């Protein structure tokens, strides 16, 4: 730190050095005079013996160790002055860098939150999640409370095993109720995650075991602050969850959000109380519904833990076929990872390319500017400045530019991130909304990107500008090599732009195919209303009666064409899969064969959605709770399990039931637009009576019915919260959000890159024309036509474009492979998209070159000949 103090006292040090040397000289001269020399001779002698004072000072300064810093400071001031003088250059640089760094920072902050961030608990790297492989396919698992117990008891490799499940819960401290995000947790949850309470204590194994008699819950720090202003008196208070009274045990420590990044829990309840929130799970101890997680003991290898767990599971269930795998659980369960992981990485690649194009563009501008400074640099080189010193100074200038761009970029990134998040969260409830808090890692990232950027665009021009031959071969040679360098940079820009434009083209076509694909039903004018009688402790028959009443009154509203109920809707809110056995069909030995999607729907569901019934009859009043089980299957199911033959009247087996097929419907796609999957529809009365969606098809504007619908629910039970009310087409649209963001942003960035490449081409051509004005004059004087002159430059720009496109073509085709899993309805090597991209870039080139070419055609040979 001493050098810092010396740096701060730098002025005083300088003065003292001056004084010290002056004193030496005086004394020396005085001694010489005393020995008999006359004063002028003495002064001469001193100068001779002592040499130049500046060199001496310089070597003393070196001894201070502050010199590097000071020189950099001078470079900084000099750089600032230079940049202020070249306002337009500085503005272009700051804007393009700000956009580039801002986009990179914004996307990285999402990547960080979704893909990198780990659970904020002690040693998250020791956490594992579980999955299975069967027939080579990986799938996530859910376990029953019993399985969790077996693993926890028999496995010596874990410091705790727990399961959890998340569900929206109606939370009421007294009079009003709201939907919050709930977690159902097993006894070792908090112990395993090693979460500490902010106040009170957290759920332990006894609490969970005894919860049937003594319901308790834990609140999140955020909910505690939001609803109770952090009042420590919350401990022991009674709150109502889905209408059931619970006692608050405590609040989790600040910064703990639950076992799923980036979701945030509000209330945690014992898993043994699940029936309060999901009545269909009541009294089924063997049913699997909990996401398992565990913490490895220190020093235990993953493979060993996997073997032991497998053994424990096989011991409990010798029939078990699938192989268990343990996976890194440091991020907990991360549902957004699956949805947004790959699109985000693609976006990261896109913005990195855009930044590269911006760097190439700036390098180009810097090389051009070096021409104006060739004189200054040449003089300094010949006066003895070292090349390293000059490069350092030029790099400080680049760093200044990049730093300015970085600051602008970080500011911009907040806005970009907020806009993206607002868009991403538009279809989500407040409890499942993504959040991206400011993060130190993101800041470090943007600083590193800034420095890297400065080196990327600054080093090469600095190296080029300070070549030793700049003094001797100042004129022709260097300007030719400079022109070549600039052409090379534009070629790179064009190539990278082609990669971006092609990628954007593919993603845009994907978006269009997705948006226009036939869903198999009519989603417009359908309102989906989520209401759950169990949220106010209405269970079983009571809930069923409430649903029936809502339906009946909804059907009587004006402008309502049809109304029905469904357990799951095509917006992918929830899906149930069960395994079945079809007589005469042998399942293939691959995972998922014999497992089909189940949906429970009321009569007139297909009419409400406009999903055509191919043959057979719709469900009706005959299909009640106690009547024989019946099902309607989709055509995909028929092709798979009945080889396309008419299945009406035939039966298949699910669990203990023989289910008769009464009709076939056309397959419907869900919000992901994937091909329809094998689906079985069963009467809603033969399925769960909670968490259903009321679907209403209107004749006019669906929004006008919404208030009446809400009124109906309220008049039945005013404490019954409506979870969400959407029109189905908006919901389905929200399913395209990742693709839409990708499509729009890739298009935007491709346009930006193309624009920058255009600027590059424009600059190079304009420079080339100025450089060759004299040559043009000569050519025209000896008879060249204007068209010849223009042809000269058209050829030059065409060469650059062709070189860039030839370089970029294979690059584009190679990088589009990374997109293949995100594409829909278009091949990653689609030749038409590639051709369109090439044409688009050529058009951009035409625009960029038109002004310089027009100017070239205006050259007056008389003026040109006298051109210097």
């Amino acid at each position, binding site marked *: 730190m001493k050098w810092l103090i010396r740096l701060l006292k730098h002025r005083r040090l300088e003065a003292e050095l001056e004084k010290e040397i002056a*004193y*030496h000289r005086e*004394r020396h001269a005085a001694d010489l005079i005393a020995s008999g020399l006359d004063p002028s001779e003495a002064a001469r002698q001193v100068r001779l*013996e002592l040499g130049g004072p500046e060199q001496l000072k310089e070597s003393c300064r070196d*001894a201070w160790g502050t010199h590097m810093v000071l020189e950099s400071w001078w470079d900084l001031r000099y750089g600032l002055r230079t940049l202020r003088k070249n306002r337009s250059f500085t503005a272009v640089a700051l804007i393009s860098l700000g956009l580039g760094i801002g986009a990179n920072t914004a996307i990285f902050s999402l990547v960080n939150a979704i893909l990198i961030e780990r659970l904020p608990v002690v040693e998250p790297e020791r956490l594992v999640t579980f999955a299975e492989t069967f027939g080579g396919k990986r799938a996530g698992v859910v376990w029953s409370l019993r399985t969790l117990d077996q693993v926890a008891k028999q496995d010596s490799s874990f410091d705790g095993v727990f399961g959890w499940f998340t569900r929206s819960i109606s939370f009421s401290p007294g009079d009003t109720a709201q939907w919050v995000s709930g977690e159902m947790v097993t006894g070792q949850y908090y112990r395993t995650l090693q979460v500490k309470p902010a106040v009170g204590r957290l759920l332990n194994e006894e609490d969970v075991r005894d919860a049937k008699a003594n319901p308790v819950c834990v609140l999140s720090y955020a909910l505690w602050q939001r609803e109770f202003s952090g009042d420590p008196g919350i401990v022991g208070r009674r709150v109502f969850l889905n209408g059931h009274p619970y006692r608050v045990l405590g609040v989790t420590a600040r910064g703990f959000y639950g076992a799923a990044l980036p979701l945030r829990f509000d209330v945690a309840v014992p898993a043994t109380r699940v029936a309060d929130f999901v009545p269909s799970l009541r009294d089924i101890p063997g049913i699997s519904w909990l996401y398992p997680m565990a913490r490895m003991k220190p020093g235990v290898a993953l493979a060993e833990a996997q073997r032991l767990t497998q053994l424990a599971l096989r011991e409990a269930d010798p029939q078990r076929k699938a192989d268990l795998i343990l996976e890194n659980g440091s991020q907990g369960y991360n549902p957004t990872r699956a949805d947004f992981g790959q699109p985000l990485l693609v976006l990261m690649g896109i913005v990195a390319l855009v930044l590269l194009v911006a760097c190439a563009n700036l390098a180009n501008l810097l090389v051009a500017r070096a021409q104006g400074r060739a004189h200054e640099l040449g003089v300094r080189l010949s006066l003895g400045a070292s090349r390293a010193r000059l490069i350092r100074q030029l790099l400080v200038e680049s760093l200044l530019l990049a730093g300015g761009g970085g600051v602008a970029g970080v500011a911009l990134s907040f806005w970009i991130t907020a806009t993206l998040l607002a868009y991403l969260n538009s279809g989500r409830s407040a409890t499942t909304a993504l959040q991206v808090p400011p993060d130190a890692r993101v800041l470090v990232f943007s600083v590193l990107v800034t420095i890297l950027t400065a080196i990327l665009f600054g080093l090469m021009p600095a190296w080029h500008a300070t070549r030793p031959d700049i003094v001797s071969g100042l004129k022709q040679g260097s300007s030719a090599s400079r022109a070549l360098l600039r052409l090379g940079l534009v070629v790179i820009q064009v190539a990278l732009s082609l990669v971006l434009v092609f990628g954007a083209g593919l993603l845009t076509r994907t978006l269009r195919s997705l948006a226009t694909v036939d869903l198999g039903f009519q989603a417009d004018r359908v309102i989906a209303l989520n209401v759950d009688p169990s949220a106010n402790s209405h269970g079983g028959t009571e809930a069923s009666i409430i649903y029936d009443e809502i339906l009946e009154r909804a059907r009587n509203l004006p402008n309502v064409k049809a109304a029905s109920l469904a357990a799951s809707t095509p917006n992918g809110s929830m899906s149930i899969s069960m395994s079945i056995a079809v007589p005469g069909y042998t399942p293939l030995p691959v995972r998922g064969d014999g497992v089909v999607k189940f949906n429970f729907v009321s009569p007139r569901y297909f009419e409400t959605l406009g999903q055509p019934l191919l043959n057979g009859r719709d469900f009706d009043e005959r299909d009640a709770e106690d009547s024989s089980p019946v099902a309607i299957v989709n055509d995909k199911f028929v092709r798979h399990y009945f080889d396309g033959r008419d299945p009406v009247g035939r039966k298949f087996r699910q669990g203990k039931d023989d289910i008769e097929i009464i009709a076939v419907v056309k397959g419907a796609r869900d919000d992901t637009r994937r091909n329809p999957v094998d689906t079985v529809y069963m009467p809603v009365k033969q399925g769960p009576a909670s968490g259903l969606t009321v679907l209403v098809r209107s004749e006019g504007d669906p929004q006008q019915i919404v208030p009446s619908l809400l009124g109906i629910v309220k008049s039945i039970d005013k404490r019954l919260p409506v979870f969400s009310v959407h029109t189905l087409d908006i919901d389905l649209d929200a399913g395209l959000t990742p693709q839409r963001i990708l499509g729009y942003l890739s298009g935007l960035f491709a346009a930006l890159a193309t624009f920058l490449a255009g600027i590059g081409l424009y600059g190079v051509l304009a420079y080339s024309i100025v450089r060759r004005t004299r040559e043009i004059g000569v050519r025209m004087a000896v008879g060249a036509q204007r068209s010849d002159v223009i042809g000269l430059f058209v050829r030059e720009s065409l060469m650059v474009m062709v070189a860039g496109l030839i370089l970029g073509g294979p690059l584009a085709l190679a990088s589009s492979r990374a997109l293949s899993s995100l594409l829909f309805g278009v091949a990653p090597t689609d030749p038409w998209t590639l051709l369109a991209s090439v044409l688009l870039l050529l058009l951009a080139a035409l625009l960029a070159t038109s002004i310089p070419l027009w100017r070239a055609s205006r050259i007056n040979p008389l003026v040109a000949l006298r051109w210097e």
Partner: protein
Amino acid sequence: MPPKADLPQGTLDMLILKIVALEPLHGYGIARRLQQVSNDVLQVQQGSLYPALHRLETKGWLKAEWKASETGREAKYYAVTKSGSKQLVAEGENWKRLTAAIQSVMRLV
């Protein structure tokens, strides 16, 4: 005047420390003292003396103080610090070992 000798590499620091250890001196005084003590054999140039002084000060082996000199003008007086004296002892030992070793080699002939 006897012939002047070049200072062996690295010995200037030791000599400065030794001279200043006797009493605090300013730069010119150090140069003069070195000359006198060595009977004009050792002459140190201003161009090496001052950088060496500043280096030693930066390392914390010398401390400096401005006070009135014998002519009445203010001069920068250097004095040895505690770590400077330690360094002087260490360098002295080293120097003794080195010269003894060199002498034993030279005696061979």
